[in-house]
Each structure stands twice: as C-alpha cells, then as structure tokens.
C-alpha cells in the first residue's frame, strides 16, 4: 500500500535535484571548507554559493546568513545571542504564547538568568494582535520574537505590523519562519525583521541545515566558541553536503513558489472543506490567513492517538495535535492559548500537504476519514460523565 504522506510540517521529502546537488559532497568532495588547499578552496566556494542562494530566498545578503544545524539551534541562537549582546540596554523580552518550544524554553532559560519575559496572548484563531505586542513593550525591552506562521495550527502572523511596532521603539525583532520560509514569500526587507530563522527540511531540503538571518550590523554574541567559522559567530566545521542541499532547495523554492502555492491551495481547500463537513469536526486556526498546505482539525468525541493510529493503518500519515505518551497528558500549548476546550483539543490532528500530494490522495482521505471517525466514536464512552470515579 502506498503511503499518503500528510505530515509535511514534521519533515518534507528530499527533492531529487537537491539530492543530486548534494551527492558530490557526500562522495569525493570531502575537504574542509576552512582548509587552504585546493579541495578546501573549492568547497569554500560551494559553501558561499549555497549561502548566496539561501540569502536570495529571503531577500538578504550572503553575509547576513549564519548556517546552523537545525531550526531549534537558530532560534536558541537568536534568543540568547541577541539578548546577551544587548544586555546593557535592558533585560526584557517579548514573545507570543504560541511560539515553538525552542523559543519558549529559551525564554524560560533567560528568565532564570534574570531576564523578564512577557508572553503575548493570541485570539481564538491563534493570531497575535500587534497592538498587544505594543502594550507588552517596556522601557528595557531589547528583543521581540514572534513566529511568522504557527506549525501546529497554520495561522499567519502580521509580521510587518509587529516589525513596525518594534522599529518605532528601536527594539530588535526576530521571527521564527521555520514553517513559512520556502512555502510563502518571506522577504526580510518587506517583513522588516532584524533576524529570521529558516530550515531546509521544511522546503524539500535535507535535515541538518538551517540558518539564522541577522541583519548586517546587528550585534550578536557567538553561539559556539571555536575556530571562528561563520564569521566567528557559529564555530564548527560546516555540514557542507546539507548546506549545499539547502542552497539548492532554496533556489528551487524561490523559482517555483507561485506554482507550488497554487496547487497546494487547491488541494488544501478541498481537504479542509471535506474534513470539516464531517459532523462535529472543527477547524483550528485562521480560516484564510493560514499556510497554504495546512489543515488542523479537532474531532469531537475522539482521541487523537487512536485517530492517528487508525488513519496510519489505512495508509495515511498525519500528525497528532496532542500527545498522551505519559501519565501527565497535556494538550498542546498552542491550542490551550487559543482557548480550544480541553476535550476537543484532545481530538486534534494536523494534516499538512506537500508538493508531491495529488488530487486522488485527497479523495482517498476524504473517503476514509469519516469512516474512521464513525468507528472510533462508537467505541468511545462520551461525554465524560459526572459520576466518574477517581482512580488512585
């Protein structure tokens, strides 16, 4: 059975062109780009070409790109590196309550080191009101970090408006564009951000290459101390095969963005409408201001784990919006922040399309989904009755 892959927010498949671009650096061209001999010089050139291509995707200059190993690293780097470099100005940071954990937990770490952190709430659609960001600003605010798009619910944020607020107050603004960059236009000058995180595995590049854009002239403390790679800001031998792959994937993402978006939207709208037409299935996130391939739904009277498992058995790979893998089961912090009722949040699944998905696959999903939901609802004892006895 062919698997229908609808989990592109977790990882995208490597494009054949990207794999081909990487191949020489996995076999043969192994020299360290820092080496001065000819192999090293050749690979240093490949590294810089990849940097230029990556920079082009976001309308930046090559020198403004710092390669990292993953989005989490870039987000940590942005939070800690920027905060530390501007410590003298103040120790207050503003984030939203629905950021990725690599931002939220980095913020918590900074809090333990004496920083103050304000977490701006979101509305029911998972949208951050720029006005709320303005209200959160204090005289000692040094950094604002609000994501471009949320990977769990797909909602797009008003980055330009938030950037304006930041600029008015002379505050650095970072955006985590992991879920959006490579899928929708993400131009740093248009957005007006001072720093931005992107990762290759979200746009059909390899795992192991990501980048932090930092506007030229922005003070930043190095994340890794060492041999001085990446202009001394992120030492460590470069993962050249992955970085070359990132460059190629960025080039393809930029040149094919429009056609990719058009076909994603067509599939997405059909999938979304079909799913929410099932009784008591609700869409999470903004109905229109959302990522083109993204659908997040909450299915009443069903747990997401058995739903995911059942769909998987039918050959459909989706992601769960909550995880019951321990005694302490918590629904997603994003859904909680949006005020989705706990019971409903527990039945959340996320379906994210990619450029390889086809119309026929949507038909299969829309055929199977209602049957699976019906079967699981029959199994379920709902609603949870008052007379439930507590166990131990």
């Amino acid at each position, binding site marked *: 059975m062919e698997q229908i892959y609808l989990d592109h927010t977790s990882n995208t498949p490597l494009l054949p062109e990207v794999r081909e671009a990487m191949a020489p650096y996995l076999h043969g061209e192994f020299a360290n780009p820092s080496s001065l001999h000819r192999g090293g010089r050749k690979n240093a050139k490949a590294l810089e070409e990849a940097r230029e291509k990556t920079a082009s995707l976001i309308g930046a200059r090559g020198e403004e790109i710092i390669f990292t190993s993953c989005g989490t690293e870039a987000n940590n780097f942005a939070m800690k590196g920027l905060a530390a470099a501007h410590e003298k100005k103040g120790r207050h940071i503003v984030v939203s309550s629905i950021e990725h954990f690599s931002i939220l937990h980095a913020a918590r770490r900074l809090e333990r080191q004496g920083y103050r952190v304000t977490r701006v709430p979101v509305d029911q659609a998972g949208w951050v009101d720029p006005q709320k960001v303005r209200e959160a600003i204090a005289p000692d605010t040094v950094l604002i970090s609000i994501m471009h798009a949320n990977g769990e619910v797909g909602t797009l944020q008003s980055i330009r408006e938030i950037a304006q607020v930041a600029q008015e107050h002379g505050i650095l603004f970072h955006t985590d564009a992991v879920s959006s960059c490579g899928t929708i236009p993400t131009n740093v000058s248009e957005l007006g951000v001072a720093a931005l995180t992107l990762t290759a595995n979200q746009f059909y590049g390899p795992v192991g290459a990501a980048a932090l854009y930092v506007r030229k002239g922005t003070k930043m403390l190095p994340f890794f101390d060492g041999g001085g790679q990446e202009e001394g800001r992120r030492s460590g031998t470069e993962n050249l095969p992955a970085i070359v792959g990132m460059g190629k994937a960025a080039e393809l993402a930029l040149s094919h963005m429009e056609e990719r978006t058009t076909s994603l939207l067509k599939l997405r709208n059909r999938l979304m409408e079909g799913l929410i037409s099932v009784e008591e299935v609700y869409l999470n996130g903004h109905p229109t201001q959302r990522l083109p391939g993204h659908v997040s739904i909450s299915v009443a*009277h069903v*747990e997401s*784990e*058995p739903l995911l*498992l*059942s769909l998987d*058995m039918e050959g459909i790979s989706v992601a769960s919006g909550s995880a*019951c*893998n*321990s*005694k*302490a*089961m918590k629904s997603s912090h994003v859904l909680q922040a949006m005020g989705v009722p*706990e*019971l409903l949040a*527990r039945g959340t699944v996320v379906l994210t399309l990619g450029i390889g998905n086809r119309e026929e696959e949507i038909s299969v999903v829309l055929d199977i989904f209602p049957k699976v939901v019906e079967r699981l609802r*029959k*199994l*379920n*004892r*709902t609603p*949870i*009755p008052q*007379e*439930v*006895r*507590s*166990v*131990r």
Partner: protein
Amino acid sequence: MSYSQKVLDHFNHPRNIGSFEKNEKNVGTGIVGAPECGDVMKLQIKVENDVIVDARFKTFGCGSAIASSSLATEWMKGRTINEAFQIKNTEIVKELSLPPVKIHCSVLAEDAIKAAVEDYRKKKVAGV
C-alpha cells in the same frame, strides 16, 4: 513508542463494544476515569449464578486504553465474579506488552473490572 501486535489487534477488532441496560438486576457497571490523563472507561458485566456470561465496554482514551478494556471483557467472560475480581493490571500489561508509559491504562482496566463487580454485588445484597 510502538504498540505490540496484540494491542493493534484489539484496537482494530475490539471485542464486546457496547452497553447493557444499567438498571437490570443481573448487570454490574463500572465507570472509572484517570484524572491525570482524562481517559474514561465503562465496563459492564451480565451475571448468572455468579458467573459472568457476557461483558461490554466503551472507552474514551488512547489505543492501549481501548485494548486494555477490550481484553478485560474477553477475560471476564466465563469467570465467576470472584475470579474476575482477582484480575491484576500486571497480567494485562504482560498480555498486551504495554510500554511503561501506558501502564496506567491497565490500572484503569483493573479498576473498571473491580467497580463493575462491586456494583453487581451491591445490587445483589440490596435485592433489587
């Protein structure tokens, strides 16, 4: 985390789903919940001469909670109520090869069995 074949089998083909009329005198009902994860399990038994002749369940929870309750109904059928009362969660863990993070599902099933038997006993004493 991966599930054993037995969990998947119960999950795919759950045994004895459904319910009995709660007020019938030969029916015992146990409803239990795990406050820490929100799972809810309803187990019912039909008893004749202290022997469980039939069982039903409905569960709101993850795959292993469903499998644990499905297995519980299978095991209870044909046993006396005293024998059923002796079923331990560890036996369920062993049979289904539940991973450590899912052991609380088997605890829930054991408690549901005990609650159903107790409910039946109470009815019998009251002579309803």
